[in-house]
């Protein structure tokens, strides 16, 4: 029950989409069993409706697939939903990449059906000149012999105009065949380079091959232009059921008139034109943003290979927990890297904390003279481009009465911004705020990562002590990777001091992993019948645990946990 409660909207979206696909498939399937297609079906066998139904679903999904990757559009939608109460719809927008993937899987499935069905179709067209089916052989030969001939008043059904040819050769002579092969190949290459390993480790391959989508859409649009699959247009004069067995007398006085055929209207472009236009605008916005001037106002070096960039840009407005994409043209003009904003909306600059973990971040640190210690003048800084900010789940923090924030390792960055923002808000309007209590859990593998966010938490410690608001925020730090001998001694020595020996904070550090079951039980006990927002940023395994916990401990009428996750 609780599981349904939490995931219901997500399943609804998926189910609506699945049902849409199935219904459209079935409807199209039966549309191709009508009398117009009697001769076509006779020639092609059962594969034609399969090919057409999967083509229809391909159109539908190719329309949808571009929408989830329009991050500026989604951000705008998210912003306009902010005022109304559909929290659950907004939560769905955070899963945009997941939906993009689901749609891609669906495209692959329908591509397979479409490809398989058309292999049958082309082979059957070739075979129509010499059918294995003895009873129909004469009829099929007669139908195949119909060519476009205005003087005799005939139109063709079989696009292959001579017997005993090769299916591969015939297929590759047509626009549909070539475009189909090309876009299937493009799709496969896009899929193979979008697997987890390639996407995470060799981003350039993923980026380049994914831009083959341009070829994909061009191919998709032109694929149907030739109108090779044909339907009969004169069923009224030439009833296939009545005339089927008298094919030798077609077109002669006393016999049935010749059947007339016409190609199907190409309609892929109608489906994808809209999303393509939207996506084009999206790219224009990104391009325009990349040309805006960004000033690096300060560079701060933090311990454990983290540095902070404080940036300024005209007209930049942000919310708590949002992220931006950074690009440095002098390093790479392709790569946009996402970073969480760590400044509060109330600050007059915006900042990102960057850990020097990869090649790009390392190069950026060098370009910003982080190691030189002193801040060089803004003019010497490399040109940076910023896209964003983009909204994520954490904008919803003020919708719940109680918030549980969980950060894993470097995933603490969005919470730096959020905690600062909450702090500002809390000071301004204590009474108005729905949010009454915040729990903050930080699970961290080693002590190195503590250091740079310490300042912030120390500030909290002080300010809360001054204003007597210790009740508002509880934070817990968990050190998961144990301790060495020196640390152990240190910890024992300083056991009875007020501050923690590792972090220097008033809250003592915990060792080992948090006991989530216990934590969630306690929260349920302390806050009966309230909506609790759980916000997480960090590694996937912990995310799954928390998601399960939220579902497990939610009860109808009692405390409800709403799970939200930051996307990377």
């Amino acid at each position, binding site marked *: 029950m609780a599981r349904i409660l939490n995931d219901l909207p997500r399943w609804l979206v998926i189910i609506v989409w699945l049902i849409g696909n199935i219904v459209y498939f079935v409807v199209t399937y039966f549309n191709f069993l009508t009398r117009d297609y009697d001769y076509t079906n006779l020639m092609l066998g059962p594969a034609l409706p399969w090919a057409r139904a999967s083509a229809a679903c391909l159109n539908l999904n190719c329309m949808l697939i571009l929408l989830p990757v329009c991050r500026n559009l989604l951000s705008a939608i998210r912003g306009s939903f902010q005022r109304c109460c559909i929290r659950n719809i907004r939560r769905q927008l955070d899963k945009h990449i997941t939906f993009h993937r689901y749609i891609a899987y669906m495209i692959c499935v329908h591509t397979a059906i479409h490809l398989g069905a058309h*292999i049958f179709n082309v082979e059957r067209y070739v075979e129509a000149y010499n059918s294995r089916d003895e009873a129909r052989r004469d009829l099929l030969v007669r139908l195949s012999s119909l060519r476009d001939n205005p003087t005799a008043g005939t139109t063709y059904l079989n696009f292959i105009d001579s017997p005993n040819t090769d*299916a591969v050769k015939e297929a590759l002579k047509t626009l549909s065949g070539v475009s189909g092969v090309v876009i299937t190949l493009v799709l496969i290459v896009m899929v193979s380079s979008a697997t987890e390993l390639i996407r995470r*480790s*060799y981003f350039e*391959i993923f980026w380049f091959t994914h831009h083959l989508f341009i070829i994909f859409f061009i191919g998709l649009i032109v694929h149907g232009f030739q109108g090779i699959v044909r339907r009969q247009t004169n069923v009224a004069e030439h009833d296939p059921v009545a005339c089927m067995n008298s094919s030798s007398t077609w077109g002669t006085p006393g016999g049935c008139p010749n059947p007339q055929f016409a190609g199907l209207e190409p309609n892929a472009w109608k489906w994808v034109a809209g999303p393509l236009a939207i996506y084009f605008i999206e790219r224009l916005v990104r391009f325009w943003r990349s040309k805006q001037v960004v000033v690096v106002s300060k560079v701060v070096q933090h311990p454990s290979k983290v540095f902070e960039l404080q940036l300024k840009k005209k007209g930049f407005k942000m919310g708590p927990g949002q992220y931006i994409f950074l690009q440095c043209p002098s390093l790479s003009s392709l790569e946009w890297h996402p970073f969480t904003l760590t400044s509060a909306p109330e600050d007059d600059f915006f900042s990102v904390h960057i850990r020097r973990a990869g090649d790009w971040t390392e190069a950026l640190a060098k370009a910003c003279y982080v190691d030189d210690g002193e801040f060089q003048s803004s003019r010497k800084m490399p040109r940076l481009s910023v896209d964003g900010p983009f909204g994520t789940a954490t904008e919803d923090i003020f919708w719940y009465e109680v918030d549980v924030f969980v950060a894993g390792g470097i995933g603490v960055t969005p919470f730096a911004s959020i905690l600062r923002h909450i702090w500002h808000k809390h000071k301004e309007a204590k009474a108005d705020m729905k949010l009454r209590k915040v729990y903050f859990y930080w699970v961290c593998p080693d002590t190195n990562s503590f250091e740079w966010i310490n300042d912030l938490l120390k500030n909290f410690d002080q300010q809360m002590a001054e204003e007597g608001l210790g009740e508002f925020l509880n934070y817990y730090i968990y050190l998961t990777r*144990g301790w060495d001998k020196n640390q152990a001694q240190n910890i024992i020595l300083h056991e009875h001091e007020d501050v923690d020996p590792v972090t220097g904070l008033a809250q003592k550090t915990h*060792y080992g992993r948090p006991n989530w079951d216990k934590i969630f039980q306690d929260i349920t006990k302390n806050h009966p019948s309230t909506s609790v927002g759980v916000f997480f940023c960090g590694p996937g395994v912990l995310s799954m645990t928390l998601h399960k916990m939220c579902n497990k401990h939610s009860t109808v009428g009692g405390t409800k946990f709403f799970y939200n996750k930051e996307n990377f």
Partner: protein
Amino acid sequence: MRQIEWSMWANEQAIISSSVVLFGGIIGITGFFRAWEIGIYAVVVAVLVFVIEYPRGKRAKGRTTERKFQHPFTRFVNRIGFLGRNYFVRFLFHLILCAPLCFILATIMGGLCLFVTSMIYLVAAFKGEQWSPVGLEEKPVEDNKKELKSFRQPKKPPPRAPPQGIEDNHI
């Protein structure tokens, strides 16, 4: 920018190619069209490519996530020796295998996929990459040293006297 290991992509492409070839092979056999025997060939090729490509090679830098149950396959490819390691060999292997697939419509897509695979392997080979097994390293004297080598979730209580004040210090 991180060094791109082309062979990793080629490997992913090969696995997908193998499934496309298998799909084409099955279609070819069930259709029973002209030269349907190539369909049988395609199924054999698909299995062969899968066996050779399923074990992911070790990455030059960073951790390698193994595929599920790839261990026996790794051992097999490792045993082939030079032919299993060298990417020029793989390039030729896929190139030769893909040629007959292009003769019938059912398997042409799979053939082209394998062709792309072989081309990526060619790039990988020219970049000097080489397949090396992952997960086959000998684990010396496992029994007594194992405990010390790995970080486990701490079983000991935290190094801190359990005073009354600290209630929620769970391990």
